[in-house]
């Protein structure tokens, strides 16, 4: 049985092609890694959503359980979990990000 929080997260993941769960807001990121992740996606020009997970510890816990990943930020692209920029940077070097985003926004 999924918890209501999991349902909420699933709905958010579905709603936003690129979704970052991070610390702070776009106007005021509260963590260097959250800022780095925003800058990562700024380059590509596709819209992304940042959801502040700081005020909601229960939701942070649910996210950690769902992804088996303990840290923020957590990035979802087209419903799939991609960790953080430690994962995205090497993917970018291999040229995998552009086609992934293109596909997400064209067909997803």
């Amino acid at each position, binding site marked *: 049985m999924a918890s209501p929080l999991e349902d909420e997260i699933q709905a958010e993941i579905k709603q936003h092609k690129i979704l970052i769960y991070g610390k702070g807001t776009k106007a005021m990121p509260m*963590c*260097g*890694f959250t800022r780095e992740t925003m800058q990562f996606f700024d380059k590509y020009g596709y819209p992304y959503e940042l959801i502040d997970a700081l005020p909601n510890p229960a939701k942070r816990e649910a996210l950690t359980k769902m992804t*088996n*990943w*303990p*840290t923020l930020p957590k990035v979802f692209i087209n419903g799939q*979990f*991609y*960790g953080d920029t*430690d*994962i995205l940077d*090497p993917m970018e070097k291999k040229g995998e990000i552009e086609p992934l985003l293109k596909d997400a926004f064209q067909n997803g």
Partner: protein
Amino acid sequence: MITTHTLTAYLHKVLPDAVVSVTDRTGTMDHFSIRVVSDLFKGKNLMDRHRLIYGALGEPMKDGRIHALEIKAETTDGS
């Protein structure tokens, strides 16, 4: 705050063969960039490699000795 020695010891519990380089990003010994080279990563994708590292460092991450961590995880042949 954690020493390079202690951090490396946590990693060696899970990855005994790991060669670990630790960079202190902020001069405060709690924001780190680490590079971990281990053949136990073979056949594991990047996310699972990172999960292994997060698992090994669970304790110092939970109690706040490690506040932020940037990870590079490779095998000895560079994959």
